């Protein structure tokens, strides 16, 4: 599941962490993350709105979130 320009990858080790999910939902300015009962869900339609602000990278343990610029590949 990726956007046309941006993909966001959440490491399996934090994907079900409710606290991190809540944090990610809170910090993302364009609502890419949603905190669900099962942990973090990505909102596909918002992926390309990513502003590359890196707030999600700071909200999660280092290296557990990856923002991929598909146009650089």
């Amino acid at each position, binding site marked *: 599941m990726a956007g046309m320009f941006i993909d966001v990858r959440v490491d399996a080790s934090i994907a079900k962490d409710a606290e991190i999910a809540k944090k990610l939902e809170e910090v993302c300015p364009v609502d890419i993350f949603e905190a669900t009962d099962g942990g973090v869900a990505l909102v596909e339609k918002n992926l*390309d709105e990513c502003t590359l602000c890196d707030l999600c990278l700071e909200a999660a343990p280092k290296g557990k979130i990856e923002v991929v610029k598909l146009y650089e590949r």
Partner: protein
Amino acid sequence: MRFYEYESKALFARHGLPLGEHRVATSADEARAAATAIGGPVVMKSQVLSGGRMKAGAVKFADTADEAASLFQPIMDAVVSGQTGRSVLVESKSPVAQEYFLSVTWDGRRKQPVLLFSDMGGIDIEEVAETHPEHLSRTHFSTLLPITPRIAKEAVGAVGVTGGALNRITPIATELMRLFLEYDLTLAEINPLARLEDGRFVVLDGHVDMEAEARGRHKKLLAELGVQEEETRQARPPTDFEIRGRQVNEADHRGVAGNVVEFDGDLGLVIGAGGGSLTLFDAVRKHGGKPANYCEIGGNPSVGKACELTKLILGKPGVEKIAVMMNVVSNTRVDIVARGVIKGCIESGKDPKDVIAIFRIPGAWEDEGFKILAKHGVDYCDRSVSMYEAAGRAVAKMG
């Protein structure tokens, strides 16, 4: 936004400009009552937001109250530039000795308001300017310094008006200038201002346009005049394309993709930034291009908003390519707009490199934006290419 004549006159009345006795009628009975109250012959004018009423049969004269009643419906039914009247203005008809033209508008080049005056009123002022330039004066004035009668007197006197007429017209012109600034108008026009046979001066017809962005500052006035918030008051009703443009803008609070106006050309325009829209639109035309639309993007529209605007423009019949051009941007991100327009092209089933004639948006996050454009093979340029030149490149591709 345009005012109806009766609203313009209501505004003029607040500033003490001389008006003939008039009433607004919304039925034949009201027209009869108005003519009876005024007494004597009356002129009846359809209230539409467009000129050309006389030619369209939307202005008629009645000698009696019964005649006024019988003329009401034909005047309401008369079509003027695609519009029919919302009401009929019934006004006393007075014998006119001479007609004058008075107008205040903006001079975009001088960046100042200008008072235009002519002693040849009642006819098309462009015609006067062309055939009798000595009968038209142009007097610029400051928006900061006080408005004084001296400015108006110079303007009126410049075409040779002297004596009593000069003294009577001067305060009218002075008030028109004050009114223009006080209400954030883009046009305040009296045509004609009549000198009656008995020597009185009367405003026979008036036209007022207010800057649309100033509506919020004049809510009280607009409410008093009965102008509803949802009334756009443009010279013609919005087209479906324009309505959908407004919907695109309203659907997402992020940034602006507004003022979408439809034209009949083949080059779609995604343009904006600090006056860039007007400059770029003019540049396209100067190069012989035919814009399919006008619009104003800025304030960092979301990818989704830029995408939807692009889809709207590309979906317009006859549009072959789009030009995406802005002034140098600071609060709009180049990469976000680039993503939006490319996505719009792809979702429209078109290859961005084929349909984007030029992408010229320099500024914030341009390096990131240029990577995206390069990846999709889109022709782009930075600020070393002027807006004028970029418009020329786009037009050249329309071959």
